[in-house]
């Protein structure tokens, strides 16, 4: 969940070698957009991909604008189910906002057209001459998924060159950047984000197309499992987001909430409510959800007398308490292990066949590669994406992979720092885009004008 801007510890730095450009790195995902200057340690701008639409049809972008319960907003997202762009008109405006709102020294595009909701009168006064585009001084390095379509790739360079006026552009695979950032030119990259979980093998810096595997069993799916868990709990857990609570009194565990609920003249839309609920669910993921370690088989390993060996043994373990915004709170014991299990094993309690599990994908991806690079892949597994921050995720992955490939060295590299796991691709792009030598790589505006958008297919592999 995008919540606040990040404070980069470093000032905008000169590009190494004294070159004058300050390139911008844009790493858009289904849940959030990461944008910032090349050479910095973390993206200055971390903005939600969700945006608001008012009843008049105005678009609102950014965390400062979309969480107002009185604005009667419809919440939407321009990304498709597989984390690639579906609505380019909106994505262009949304990303532009993510870039211009947080990265300083910037001209903004005409505020009457760029969809920003700043105070118009001020902005108009400061406006530069007509025709100025927002990124005329900044080369743009954008990340993309391994399964991005040719159409989308060409659209990216078009937006950069035509709408934003970038002098140069580059498109880099997010899995390759994550591998490079871990010091590896060859790796099996496992990325679990919001919309998509994927396994992609990278060899000498290039993705192996045949090895690309993806699945919807990712963060959004886990959120759905948590909703089902709340729904089925005894007593049922009411997911009441913060904005609805006017006041609350402490209650015992499992007791009904004693809270005053806010009344709205116009009740917020269902999509707005879902957005606010998602914030709580993400917090629940961070503090309560646990991935079963897989030490004695999977969670629902059955035993002859009936029942589940591992799940039942967890019932006697101490649980974790979680308090909802309305003050109701409950202890989560063995149940907190259930919501992520389906990512690893097709589960008999959650929706079945929602998509391939991580295990299915690892096998399929691995089997699609050449024999001679296989040992290198297993010894260089790179884990990235915020859903991999779930407690116990990496331990479980390790246990599954060592069981799958006995006698082979499996080594999983998962950055210990949360920031690196969430922003791994952005950070990789930041280093690359700041290299003095990288100016030879950029697709320049002149090249774009000469060859058209298809140049991106030829140059960015």
């Amino acid at each position, binding site marked *: 969940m995008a919540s606040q801007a990040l404070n980069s510890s470093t000032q905008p*730095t000169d590009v*190494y*070698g004294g070159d004058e450009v300050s390139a911008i790195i844009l790493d858009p995902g289904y849940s959030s957009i990461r944008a910032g200057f090349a*050479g910095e340690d973390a993206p200055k701008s971390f903005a939600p991909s969700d945006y608001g639409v008012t009843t008049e049809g105005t678009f609102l972008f950014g965390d400062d604008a979309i969480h107002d319960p009185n604005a009667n907003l419809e919440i939407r997202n321009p990304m498709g189910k597989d984390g690639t762009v579906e609505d380019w008109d909106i994505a262009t405006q949304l990303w532009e906002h993510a870039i211009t709102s947080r990265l300083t020294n910037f001209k903004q595009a005409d505020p009457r057209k760029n969809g920003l909701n700043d105070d118009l009168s001020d902005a108009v006064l400061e406006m530069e001459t007509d025709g100025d585009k927002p990124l005329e001084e900044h080369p743009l390095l954008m990340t993309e998924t391994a399964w991005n379509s040719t159409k989308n790739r060409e659209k990216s360079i078009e937006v950069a060159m035509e709408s934003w006026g970038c002098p140069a552009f580059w498109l880099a695979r997010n899995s390759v950047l994550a*591998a*490079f*950032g*871990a*010091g*590896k*030119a*060859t790796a099996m990259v496992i990325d679990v984000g919001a919309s998509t979980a994927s396994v992609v093998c990278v060899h*000498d*810096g290039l993705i192996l197309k045949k090895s690309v595997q993806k699945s919807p069993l990712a963060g959004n799916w886990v959120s759905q499992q948590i909703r089902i868990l709340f729904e089925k709990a005894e007593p049922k857990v009411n997911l009441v987001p913060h904005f609805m609570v006017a006041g609350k009194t402490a209650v015992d565990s499992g007791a009904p909430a004693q809270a005053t609920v806010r009344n709205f003249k116009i009740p917020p839309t269902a999509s707005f409510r879902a957005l606010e609920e998602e914030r709580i669910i993400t917090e629940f993921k961070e503090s309560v959800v646990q991935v079963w370690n897989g030490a004695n088989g999977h969670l629902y390993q059955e035993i002859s007398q009936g029942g589940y060996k591992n799940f039942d043994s967890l019932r006697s373990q101490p649980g974790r308490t979680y308090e909802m915004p309305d003050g109701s709170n409950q202890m989560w014991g063995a149940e907190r292990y259930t919501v992520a299990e389906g990512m690893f094993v097709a589960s008999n309690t959650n929706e079945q066949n929602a998509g391939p599990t991580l295990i299915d994908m690892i096998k399929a991806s691995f089997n699609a590669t050449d024999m001679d690079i296989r*040992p*290198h892949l297993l*010894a*260089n597994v790179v884990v990235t994406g915020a859903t991999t921050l779930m407690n116990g995720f990496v331990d479980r992955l390790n246990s599954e992979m060592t069981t799958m490939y006995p006698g082979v060295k499996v*080594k999983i*590299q998962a950055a210990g720092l949360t920031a*690196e796991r969430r922003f791994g691709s952005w*950070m*990789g792009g930041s*280093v*690359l885009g*700041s*290299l*003095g*030598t*990288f*100016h*030879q*790589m950029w697709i320049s505006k002149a090249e774009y004008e000469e060859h058209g958008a298809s140049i991106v297919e030829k140059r960015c592999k």
Partner: protein
Amino acid sequence: MSQSGVSLSGDCVSKFNELKLNKKIKYIIYKLTDDYKEIVIEEASEDGDWEAFREKLVSATQKNKAGKVGKGPRYAVYDFSYELASGEGTRSKITFIAWSPDDAGIQPKMIYASSKDALKRALNGLAAEFQANDEDDIEYQSVLAKVSKGLA
């Protein structure tokens, strides 16, 4: 050219050819210059002592952009010889090693990884290759197993 735009200094390949043809040089260690523009030879040695070679990788450093010195990745080529367990004699394999310690900074790791293909593709006659990210990965026994594919 590499994916980072980093290039090779002139003697990177000629020294490798010398290793390949004259069989005197045992290993070459390559590094990136401090300005991250070029891959250069740090050392070429006729000493075949693996431990001494390993120690050089382990203690390698690299300046980051801010001028701070930290652990440094390296590339190396080692003319690795071993006896076949079957008694069928000695084999030698020119092995390419991409050394990138996990505790090096993201900047040097990123730059070495994205520049590797420039060097690797320029060296003709490599018989084996591996990535190493911690000291265990470059233990003699573990390298022997990797390079000989278990036949030593």
